[in-house]
């Protein structure tokens, strides 16, 4: 008798599967559409160098998107990452000047900026304040720190091998892309197969429930924010390597791009949802967009307007997805 009320279960799996395909597939379709349109508009688009350029360019965003996806899954947000990219670039430049090799310098920088993430996490978790506001404050402080340390100038005069990480290839693929793929796969593994990854979904999905399940929600949030800044630090090192200098001005509004990429990829600003592979697709989509606009010689000022509109679009998209919550 009661089964009549419940729509046949077999209808469900098909329906929900279709829904998933439509939502995720839609983004991929849009990406393919964009590629085709830009390709037609400018035949240079499909040249190997250009494509590699796109991937190299967006690898910095993609690495940050992995960390940001985790933060969003926890139900938080982190606006510090753009400023971290700048600070990390400065720090790695100084470390190399002081005689460290690239690997040691990178690790040192990642740990160093990780402390900033730890700070963010502790403030958010202890005082239960919105992460958006805390990280906004930290962002300004970090950005200012970059200027203070360098007196507003770039840190250059670095050895040639400094640019190896950001500019060179390994088996024909730009090194930053390889790093990105490794980070994405690790991120996917942590989220899907480790305890801490599953706890992130729980804390973001229903923090009250997570608390009653005995999960240490504070630890989870602190962990996610720390990992995120460490990944932002890695991106900053790669970026500095590309520029062959550490600069306090870089990374402006990277955090917005990264958040947009994650939301386009299906992560929700409300928490509990997110997938690093789809965030990667979101980052690629943005990379293709900007590259396409560049090839069409659209000025960067117009590109900034486009960025703003895309961010709004992504947020509205996220809200629409959540409208039909059971």
């Amino acid at each position, binding site marked *: *008798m*009661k089964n*009549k*009320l*419940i*729509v046949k*279960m*077999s209808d*469900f*799996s098909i329906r*929900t599967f279709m829904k998933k395909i439509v939502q995720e597939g839609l983004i991929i379709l849009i990406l393919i559409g964009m590629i085709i349109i830009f390709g037609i508009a400018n035949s240079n688009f499909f040249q190997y160098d250009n494509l590699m350029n796109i991937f190299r360019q967006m690898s910095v965003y993609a690495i940050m998107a992995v960390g940001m996806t985790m933060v969003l899954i926890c139900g938080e947000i982190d606006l510090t990452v753009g400023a971290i990219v700048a600070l990390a670039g400065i720090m790695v430049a100084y470390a190399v000047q002081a005689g460290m090799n690239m690997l040691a310098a990178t690790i040192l920088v990642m740990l160093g900026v990780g402390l900033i993430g730890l700070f963010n996490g502790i403030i958010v978790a202890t005082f239960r304040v919105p992460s958006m506001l805390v990280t906004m404050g930290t962002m300004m402080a970090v950005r200012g720190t970059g200027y203070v340390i360098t007196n507003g100038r770039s840190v250059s005069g670095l050895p040639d091998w400094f640019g190896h990480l950001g500019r060179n290839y390994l088996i024909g693929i730009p090194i930053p892309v390889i790093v990105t793929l490794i980070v994405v796969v690790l991120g996917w593994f942590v989220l899907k*197969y*480790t*305890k*801490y990854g*599953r*706890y992130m*979904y*729980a804390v973001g*999905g*229903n923090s*009250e*429930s*997570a*608390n*009653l*399940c*005995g*999960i*240490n929600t504070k630890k989870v949030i602190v962990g996610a924010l720390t990992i995120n800044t460490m990944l932002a630090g890695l991106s900053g090192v790669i970026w500095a390597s590309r520029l062959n200098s550490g600069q306090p001005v870089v990374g402006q509004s990277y955090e917005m791009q990264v958040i947009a990429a994650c939301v386009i990829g299906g992560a929700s600003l409300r928490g*509990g*949802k997110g997938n690093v592979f789809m965030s990667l697709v979101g980052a690629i989509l943005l990379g293709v967009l900007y590259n396409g606009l560049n090839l069409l010689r659209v000025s960067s000022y117009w590109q900034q307007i486009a960025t703003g509109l895309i961010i709004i679009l992504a947020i509205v998209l996220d809200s629409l997805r959540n409208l*039909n*919550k*059971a």
Partner: protein
Amino acid sequence: MFEISGVCKRFVGVLALDHVDFALKQGEIHGLLGENGAGKSTLMKIISGVYTYDEGEIRMEKEVVQFHSPRDALKCGISIISQELSLCEDLSVAENIHMGHLPEKAGGLIDWTKINTQSIEAMRDLGMDINPRLKVKHLSTSQKQLVEIAKAVSRNCKILLMDEPTSALAQTEVDHLFLKMRELAKRGISIVFISHKLDEVYTVCDRITLLRDGRKIDTYMVGEKTQNKTIELMIGKPLDEYYATNNTGKITSKLSTEVIMTVKNLCTENKLKNISFSLHKGEILGLYGLMGSGRTEVLRALYGADKVNSMELTLNGKQLTKLTPAKSIQNGIVLIPEERKLQSLYLELSVSDNICIPNLNRLCAGPIVKSDKRDALVDDCITRMGVKTPGRGIKIKYLSGGNQQKVIIGRWLANQPKVLLMDEPTKGIDVGAKSEIYSLIHKFSQQGYSVLCVSSEISEIKQLCDRVILIRDGKLEGELERSEINLSNISEALAVEHL
């Protein structure tokens, strides 16, 4: 005067209302009955404009009306008192009563004197005497409920919908309310009254409409059918058959005298005062009280989810201190909260995730979750609890309330808990699933688990519990053995002293 015909409402996975007809006469008090999950609240939310409906039509005075929001319903003169209080805690009583229709002086300025005098009158009508400037957060739950009623009544409505308006009220307050309702009815206002307390419905209503599993079963005058016959219609089975299938031989209580848990002097900042009781091994102990009496607070305090001023808790002879949910779980105490959507479920995650998340520690080798162990645990839980789901991977939001609740109860059993704290375990669950959950709880107690169960339905307490302790305003007022559980004993124990 007001008619609904053929209304259907679908939520994901559930047909909440199936072609329901409902007609309301002017000046009548019409009771709406049905078990948890029958569709009563859904119907009320449709009439008051909170929900839209998928099929059917609503007519007011023979004219078809469409409500797109609560505002539309209000304009038509329909006022609702919801089950969950919807007051603004930081605003005054007067502002809450006049929410949405603050009286204005010429020029659009708020007339504060009028607001306060009108509020005093409105409250006096209901037998209350509270300073209208007092912020609502300082009121007791029963006072809040009366303010909610005053708010609805003050709107000069034509139709008043009351969804469980007496859940926090003591008997004298209920009597006063019924007087007021009869007065309103005489003035031509129609009232729809939902209550799961059958006695109340039979006292104050003229007619009754009965819902079951989303369908209207019958509408009849109160005198036409006995209370027992009404219960039979509500549950869809003859009474003796119902009790037989739900009586799993717990009558002769082989009640263990072994005490498994004692609580002494439990005090919290805002509510609980010196709560002390013991729980025996294999016992199902009920905790009964009105809404706002502190029932949930007791469970949360025992679980370590809330701060307490003092508490002596012993489990199996060992004193437990500095409790947190994590520690309680380790010690073998688990909590099944009242609001599963807000406090238990991860709606966007799969059934498998919902089962595993509190159990990840035992499923991991180091930080990595072993998928074979995980799948084994999930399958075991699904079979043991009889969860109806097309698969482990489906998002839990698509399951029915009863199956969701089974998942939540089941996920804790893997821990082999000693004590299960259950807060309204059958809230929002349809009849069939309810009896399944009762059998499961009986089975647990036979297996040696001890259960402390909060419930606001006397029939549920009678069915489930070996013993019940009664709470009012944060204090324990008495204890009843199973045979003594009935409405009059409970009312007596919880009687309000002042008059």
